[in-house]
């Protein structure tokens, strides 16, 4: 349940919880907002959605602060939380929150999803063609730079399961990439990148 419905937060009185709790949250936030921004932006189409997911992720951390581990493990915990919020968003449940209005406005002005051409377009198409579970596994390693143990912590499974699933995911990705590379790509010869068609 993600109780951040639009506008709801405006009604809340100032502030809740002792200073110690707030201090702990601020530490977690300061150490992890960059990685969480990156994680979420890499997985969303719209900067506004990204801002909402980021806000909900840290709101979850605030509400479950006692569950947030210390040190670098906090980041893994936050990835797991962000992943669940994203799953809700992908179901179409929008939680456009007033919490993230400002963040969303800034990201909207600053972030544009890259469009790929040539070989990178083939890689991107092959990657998009994979099942979600494969994509997440491969991305946690390639984009977040996690090792198998860290991936296991984010996904809540054993390291051995990660190893096996990763092996399969990589194989499926290679198959998919080969398929995309085998496709005829007539337009590439006629349209130069950035030039007139």
């Amino acid at each position, binding site marked *: 349940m*993600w109780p951040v419905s*639009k506008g709801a937060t405006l009604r809340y009185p100032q502030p809740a919880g002792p200073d110690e709790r707030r201090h702990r949250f601020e530490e977690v936030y300061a150490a992890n907002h960059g990685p969480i*921004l990156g994680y979420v932006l890499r997985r969303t189409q719209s900067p506004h959605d990204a801002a909402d997911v980021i806000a909900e992720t840290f709101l979850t951390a605030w509400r479950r602060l006692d569950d947030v581990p210390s040190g670098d493990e906090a980041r893994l915990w936050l990835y797991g939380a962000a992943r669940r919020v994203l799953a809700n968003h992908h*179901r179409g449940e929008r939680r*456009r929150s007033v919490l993230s209005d*400002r*963040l969303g406005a800034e990201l909207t*002005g600053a972030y544009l999803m890259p469009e790929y051409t040539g070989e990178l377009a083939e*890689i991107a198409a092959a990657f998009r063609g994979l099942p979600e579970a494969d994509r997440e596994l491969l991305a946690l390693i390639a984009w977040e730079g996690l090792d198998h143990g860290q991936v296991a912590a984010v996904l809540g499974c054993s390291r051995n399961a990660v190893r096996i699933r990763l092996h399969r995911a990589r194989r499926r990705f290679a198959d998919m990439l080969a398929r995309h590379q085998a496709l005829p790509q007539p337009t590439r010869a006629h349209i130069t990148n950035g030039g007139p068609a």
Partner: protein
Amino acid sequence: MNPISRISPVSDADAARMVSDAALADLAERITSSPVRAAPARPRRWLFGIPLAAGLAAAVLIATSIGHPGAKVGPLGVGPASAQALVFEKHGRYIDVLVRNPVADPRRYRAEFKAHGLDITLSLVPASPSLVGTLVEMSNSGGADGRGLKTITAVGKCWTGGGGSICPVGVRVPVGFRGQADITFGRAARPGERYETTAPADARGEVMYGLHFHHRTVAAVLAVLRKRHVTVPVFHYTTAKGIGELLPPSRVPATWHVYDADPWAPHQVMLWVGPGRVEVMPAASPDSPVPSPSPTSSWPAS
């Protein structure tokens, strides 16, 4: 180089540079001003949409949850206070758990799960009509012992916000489940009760389904809504500084335009409005142009 690394849309460092310190501080301030609720479980694993033949549980949950939310507390008859809140049905290696009383005290659910040796916390939250009866959230922990819960889906039987038709409607618990889990379903709201989970107001099954309201005037949209007996108790307006405000109807000019809508409560929506025909997103605050560097030196480059 890992080929997938080459299509990383943005690095952490670049992402962090896109937002000002002021915006980050603003978000932190708003979050820490929010109330803290008791939340017993660790979110370890998100299970969603695992296709499974829809068994009895799915059938019962669909039958009891999708229908005519509104005047009553859901289409499921709410039994007397003494009635059992949950029904447990063993099917081979799984137990299907059916919700008999969607508005029972959560402690009763917990007690009934406990009586079956299960450490499961069940919550039902008021949901906008198309999400009634669907799984809102599931998380579980406990390592190997915490795995094994499966969602029961009824593909095409309900529509979640963005048009998704996977429709998770139930949960199957393996016999001998020793982990801990939190499960949240959407239930029909009581009259006047605020939704806690919503689909877009114009999603199929919602009160504004089929209406064209984007960029129309407030007066025009209110007129259409009146015909559907839908009221607007509150409007959302984003100020030039990018701060969201809730406005009562008396403070919203009829000539303003509608950008978006969200279900608010039964037969009520919240409209996102502003003076211009097109929503203008405010730029970053000019008093906070300093980029904020990525705070984690240990973070590997993408």
